[in-house]
């Protein structure tokens, strides 16, 4: 790990001398892409980051939202892609650990986790299967042990992740507003390092995350220790309750180098520390190793000498090590010593603020032709196609995954995984709904519209539970940004997200950029993953079971935009076509109307239409409610599309509503009055999923047969190596 020539001369000119080797390592860690966001930072500013609910405080690693009555919700998203690609178990687990500590550093208790998992073609590729299985176990073992429920996520497979893994984790926290850590430091304050010992594992991790995987540095594996993390959580919260923490930061990428320099820079202080005071796992570690080690489960805390005793007592109770490694000064320098000897002495402003790059961008060549569709023979047996899709790895139920996660601990989970979004109850009587979504297939075809689509899908999922979106988390994952074509896709996605966020007044409360995601065969597809938080202010309207005689209404138009759909990619093995586009006005109208209908108790349940289109969405309803349906494709609002397109188009802004007969008139009138494009398209009953067009049967599939395939195929694929159904 090192600085390039230009960075080296910049550093020299800024400090006016040759840097020491420790200084070089510190700066290299902090100026890495992972820590400094040097390629992305100047652009990220375009996202709207303020709003009436947002609480901004210096030095927070997570977003803070005021949810009323003196309570706050915190949120953050992270990825651990490079480590997970080589050691999926430890990589995924330590990814969970990292994002949890970001929540903890604001002084809030972590209350929920989400995981977004992406791998290569799991049907063909044994490596992908191994990565997937172990990443799931990693998330499970870590989150379960901490007692933080993993309540949602997504799983997706695409050839672009061959020999690679995207492991995204998001976490939510909850606490009293008055307990938030007000990051500050006073004269004479001490700097304390608490938690696991510092070792050689994980040296160079952030640099590793900023290189492409081909590079040699693979030593950066980190061993997860959820038990210590659990003790840290309890100790920190106890210390917080005792008002013992002036400022706090978790140790993540770049280890002590980043934590110390960034804390000092954010608080406008200086920090003097001694590496000899750091409790290390091995006795022969040199200062630079100690400064850049990314050993997990450590927190940096600033406290006063008077409070130290109490803090130490708490640490002792939980058997966690706690070392005073330095103290606060007011010279805006980070001064690292080994005993009496100075090994680094740098202005924190220099360390913590890498020079931002302004990378060139250029529209990728491939986009010029990507929308041109191949000619397909029409599907002759749509029942078979639907069956195939329902059992396909991307659409099949993820129950095999989320049943390995304790999603109930904490007894907040009101709506559990398996629904569009999960819902947590909060202590003030309100409810929090959340979901993360990505769609690399659409983002590849149109990085801008694709990203907007992910954002809208996450909103839709949250809206289906009756919650109004209040905040967004973005995680922008791309290939090597030095390739202008890749950087262009990054900028396009970011602009799309910004437009959507501004139009809907959903502020970005946090995010992360992960670049250099390159597999041995090339860059990954653009993969922004968007998390949306929604709030239910008043009553929770639990989805009710669908029964015979209930009606199905579709909201929104089904359009000829099949690009990136499972129908094109999984059934036809074709990458291309027109990417679905979100019409902001319609989207807003639909969200508002659906929320109103839910609030008025006019609908039994709402489900969004996404992967696999209307056919899959309706089938999911039938399968989870164990009931058949009869749907007329000729009623679906569309412009003369062929049956297979109506069935499988993935147009956005669509919802399917289940309505009881007695509420049918009222719901339809409401939608009409609000000029929403909708149609009553079917009725529930019987034991078959049926679609017809003008009376002619298009699909006829037994619910139980479809359900069996949908529920079991992912497990069968992973455990037995093939889908049996």
């Amino acid at each position, binding site marked *: 790990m090192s600085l390039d020539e230009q960075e080296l001369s910049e550093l020299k000119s800024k400090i006016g001398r040759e840097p020491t080797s420790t200084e070089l390592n510190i700066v290299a860690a902090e100026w890495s892409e992972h820590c400094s966001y040097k390629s992305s930072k100047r652009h990220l500013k375009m996202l709207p980051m303020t709003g009436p609910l947002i609480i901004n405080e210096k030095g927070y690693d997570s977003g803070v939202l005021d949810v009323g009555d003196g309570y706050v919700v915190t949120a953050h998203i992270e990825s651990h892609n490079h480590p997970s690609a080589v050691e999926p178990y430890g990589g995924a687990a330590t990814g969970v650990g990292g994002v949890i500590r970001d929540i903890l550093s604001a002084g809030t208790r972590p209350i929920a986790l989400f995981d977004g998992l992406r791998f290569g073609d799991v049907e063909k590729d044994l490596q992908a299967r191994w990565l997937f299985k172990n990443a799931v176990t990693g998330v499970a073992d870590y989150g379960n042990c901490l007692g933080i429920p993993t309540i949602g996520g997504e799983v997706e497979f695409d050839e672009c992740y061959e020999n690679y893994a995207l492991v995204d984790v998001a976490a939510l926290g909850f606490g009293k507003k008055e307990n938030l850590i007000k990051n500050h430091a006073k004269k004479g304050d001490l700097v304390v390092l608490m938690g696991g010992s510092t*070792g050689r*594992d994980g040296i160079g991790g952030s640099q590793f995350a900023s290189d492409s995987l081909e590079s040699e540095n693979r030593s950066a594996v980190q*061993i997860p*220790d959820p*038990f*210590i993390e659990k003790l840290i959580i309890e100790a920190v919260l106890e210390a917080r309750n005792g008002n013992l923490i002036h400022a706090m930061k978790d140790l993540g990428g770049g280890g002590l180098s980043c934590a110390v320099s960034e804390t000092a820079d954010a608080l406008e202080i200086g920090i003097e520390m001694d590496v000899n005071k750091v409790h290390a796992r091995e006795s022969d570690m040199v200062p630079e190793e100690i400064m850049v080690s990314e050993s997990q489960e450590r927190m940096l805390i600033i406290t006063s000498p008077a409070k130290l005793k109490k803090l130490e007592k708490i640490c002792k109770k939980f058997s966690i090590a706690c070392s005073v490694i330095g103290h606060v000064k007011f010279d805006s320098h980070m001064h690292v010593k080994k005993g009496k000897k100075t090994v680094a002495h740098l202005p924190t402003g220099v360390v913590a603020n890498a020079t931002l790059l302004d990378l060139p961008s250029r529209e990728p060549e491939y986009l010029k032709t990507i929308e041109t569709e191949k000619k397909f023979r029409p599907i002759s047996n749509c029942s078979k196609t639907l069956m195939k899709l329902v059992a396909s790895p991307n659409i099949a139920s993820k129950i095999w995954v989320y049943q390995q996660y304790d999603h109930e601990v904490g007894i907040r989970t009101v709506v559990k995984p398996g629904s569009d979004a999960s819902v947590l109850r909060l202590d003030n009587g309100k409810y929090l709904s959340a979901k993360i979504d990505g769609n690399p297939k659409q983002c590849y075809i149109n990085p801008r519209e694709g990203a907007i689509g992910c954002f809208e899908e996450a909103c839709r999922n949250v809206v289906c539970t009756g919650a109004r979106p209040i905040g967004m988390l973005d995680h922008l994952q791309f290939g090597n940004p030095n390739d202008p074509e890749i950087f262009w896709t990054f900028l396009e996605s970011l602009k799309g997200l910004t437009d959507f966020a501004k139009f809907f007044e959903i502020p970005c409360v946090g995010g992360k950029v992960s670049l250099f995601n390159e597999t041995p065969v090339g860059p990954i597809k653009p993969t922004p993953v968007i998390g949306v938080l929604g709030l239910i202010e008043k009553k929770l309207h639990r989805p009710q079971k669908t029964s015979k005689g209930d009606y199905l209404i579709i909201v929104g138009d089904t359009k000829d935009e099949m690009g990136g759909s499972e129908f094109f990619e999984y059934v036809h093995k074709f990458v291309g076509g027109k990417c679905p586009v979100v019409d902001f006005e319609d989207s807003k109208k639909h969200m508002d109307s659906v929320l109103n209908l839910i609030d008025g108790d006019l609908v039994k349940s709402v489900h969004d239409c996404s992967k696999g289109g209307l056919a899959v969405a309706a089938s999911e309803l039938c399968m989870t409610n164990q009931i058949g349906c009869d749907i007329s494709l000729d009623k679906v609002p569309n412009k003369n599309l062929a049956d297979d397109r109506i069935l499988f188009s993935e147009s956005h802004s669509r919802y399917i509503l289940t309505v009881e007969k007695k509420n049918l008139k009222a719901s339809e009138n409401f939608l009409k009055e609000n000029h929403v494009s909708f149609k009553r398209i079917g009725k529930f009953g019987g034991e078959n999923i049926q679609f017809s067009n003008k009376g002619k049967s298009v699909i006829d599939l037994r619910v139980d047969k479809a359900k069996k395939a949908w529920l079991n195929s992912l497990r069968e694929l992973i455990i037995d190596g093939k889908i049996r159904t």
Partner: protein
Amino acid sequence: MATFNVHVIIENKPGISDPEGETILNDLVLKGTHKTVSKIKAAKMLKFTIREKDKDAAQSKVQDICDDLRIYNPMVSKVTIQVFEE
């Protein structure tokens, strides 16, 4: 052909921490009266029963299986294989 018992020991590589061993040492063994223990390392063991023509064949066959089935990840663990005749 003969039958062999092959023991496969999978443990974290040196320098990589072993939280399980540490917890067993610190929270169980040292809390009691057994102070002469200075270290505990946890490992996993698989005992194979295999028919091969000789010891070497048994050894290399089991090594192949461990690699094939990804029974351990060489990034974090090392494996030791011991062959015993029945």
